[in-house]
């Protein structure tokens, strides 16, 4: 039985410069069994797709004018949707990089002390063309960088290389301008 989707409009939060992630996760938590979530945002929330995919949600997105997007998150039939406040896995926002272009820029930040790798990576991402990809080599998992990338709407994928000492991070710049300055 198809249920009426719960609608969440995070555009006011984004326009006020806020961070809608908590509101979205609260809404997901409050969904009934098999109830979809209709999300309205000022940009295509691509990092969220992977977060919610881990929780068993598929998505259908469409642009609704003025750069705004409507995304319908629907619980997958097979997935058991048990929303909890359990955080997603560490690379949950990491996209499949199959359709990404080759990195247009590579940075070796392994010999810099924190937070310089984060500063250089973010600065370089800002200089990318929308949709462009950069590769950043780091000496540890950049845990403080991920929330900042998510806030800015960028996608990333990262893992330690087989040598166990180099963390290779790919960041794809959001295709839209960042919605809330």
């Amino acid at each position, binding site marked *: 039985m198809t249920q009426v989707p719960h609608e969440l409009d995070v555009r006011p939060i984004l326009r006020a410069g806020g961070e809608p992630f908590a509101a979205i996760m609260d809404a997901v938590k409050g969904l009934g069994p098999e109830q979809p979530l209709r999300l309205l945002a000022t940009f295509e929330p691509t990092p969220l797709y992977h977060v919610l995919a881990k929780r068993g949600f598929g998505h259908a997105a469409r642009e609704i004018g003025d750069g705004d997007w409507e995304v319908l998150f629907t619980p997958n039939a097979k997935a058991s949707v048990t929303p909890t*406040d*359990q*955080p997603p896995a*560490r690379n949950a926002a990491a996209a499949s990089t199959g359709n990404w272009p080759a990195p247009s820029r590579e940075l070796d930040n392994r010999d810099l*002390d924190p937070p310089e790798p984060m500063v250089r990576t*973010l*600065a370089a991402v800002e200089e990318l063309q929308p949709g462009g990809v950069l590769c950043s080599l780091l000496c*540890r998992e950049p845990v*403080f960088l991920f929330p*900042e990338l998510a806030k800015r709407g960028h996608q990333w994928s990262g893992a330690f290389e087989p040598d166990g000492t180099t963390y290779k991070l790919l960041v794809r710049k959001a295709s839209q301008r960042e919605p809330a300055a």
Partner: protein
Amino acid sequence: MIGASLSRWTMSYFSVALLSLLGAEALMVSGFGFPSRPITAPQTLVLVHLTVIGWLSLLMSGALIQFVPVLVAKPLAHPDLPAVALALLLIGLAGLIAGFLDIPGISSTSMPWLPFGAMVLSAGFVLNLWNLGRTLWSARPMGLPARFVVAGLVSLAGVVALGIVFSLTLARWTTSEVLTTLTAHGVALHAALGLGGWLGFTAMGVSYRLLAMFMLAPEEKRWTSRIALGAGTASIVVLLVGGPACLLFGLKLDHVLVVALLMASICVVLYGHDVVRLYRTRKRRHMELNTRMAAVALGGLGIAALLLLALAALGDVARYIGAVVFLVAFGWLSGLGLAKLYKIVAFLTWLQCYGPLIGKRATPRVQDLADEPRAMPWFWLYFASVGAASVAAFLDTPLVFRIAALGMLVATAGICAELVRIRTLKSVPTPMLPEGVQARPRLILPSLER
């Protein structure tokens, strides 16, 4: 959020912790408690608990609610639970202190402060244990530093449990023979688990990662670290299981304490070896104030460990244990804590004020928020005063100890003033100041708009 965000309540924990440290030092200056009084005197118990709960445990808890998510790359399970825990910890500590002060007159008030304080305090610790435990559990398999933290948290659970037993017995809420025996002879277990297991072992785990991070030293998986973890954990298990078991079967605790001390010594030696290696293999040749001062604090640990072993060999531990514990608490743990606070407060303030601006405009470096030449003399005064106070405690000269404690108090106040300068961006040139609501981060309370 994926990764680790800023913990909203860490700065509140740090602020209350520093106030407790200043309070404890002021008490020492006034001659309250050890060494002017015996180590078992109620005044000493007040001083000890204000130091290890009010200062060190709140410092460690505040650091862990920020640091555990960084260690395991997962957000804290319940981001706002630490606020409730902090309130409970403060009320509980106040109750505990009221309870200790009540002992001399055998409770003239009707309020059973001691068990009340112990139970509220335990509730606060349990909330943080639950929160950190869930966060760590969600990130299995864990790396080495996180395993140290887990062992430290287990030790904390033991300390809390023993504390409750003591308070119930002392308040005569129970007359159980088992619990009375535990109270009469278990104080050494309580102290060793608290200072060594919870505070010491956790500090070791955290410093493995922090030192490597801030000095750019390679974090290799070394057998020495694994054995340090094993020996330290074994020491905790011996105290936690062997100690009470020994007492319950009517055996003397000495053997358990000696075995635990030997295990802990192996742990400290290997940890020291690893830390020296981290310093030697660092890629960052210039050492910042925090890493230099951390080295001095680690020297304090080395001296304390050697003294304890020497005293154990001479069979003279009881006479000098107060002085050794003082050196561990103020030379090593507090010194390391103050040194790391100086860096962590700057880092968190920088991230809070400038994180959203990176790449969009010029931002200062983290070290631009701190003014090391200004802060350095306070740190040297602190360590020199701790050294003098330790010697005074060994020689049992309370007046010299009080003068040295005054040096510690002045130095700590100076370091606190430097932390406030960092937090209020006083060293940042005006053109570099952030604009808008985040220009003045709150000193103590979290930024609720985050």
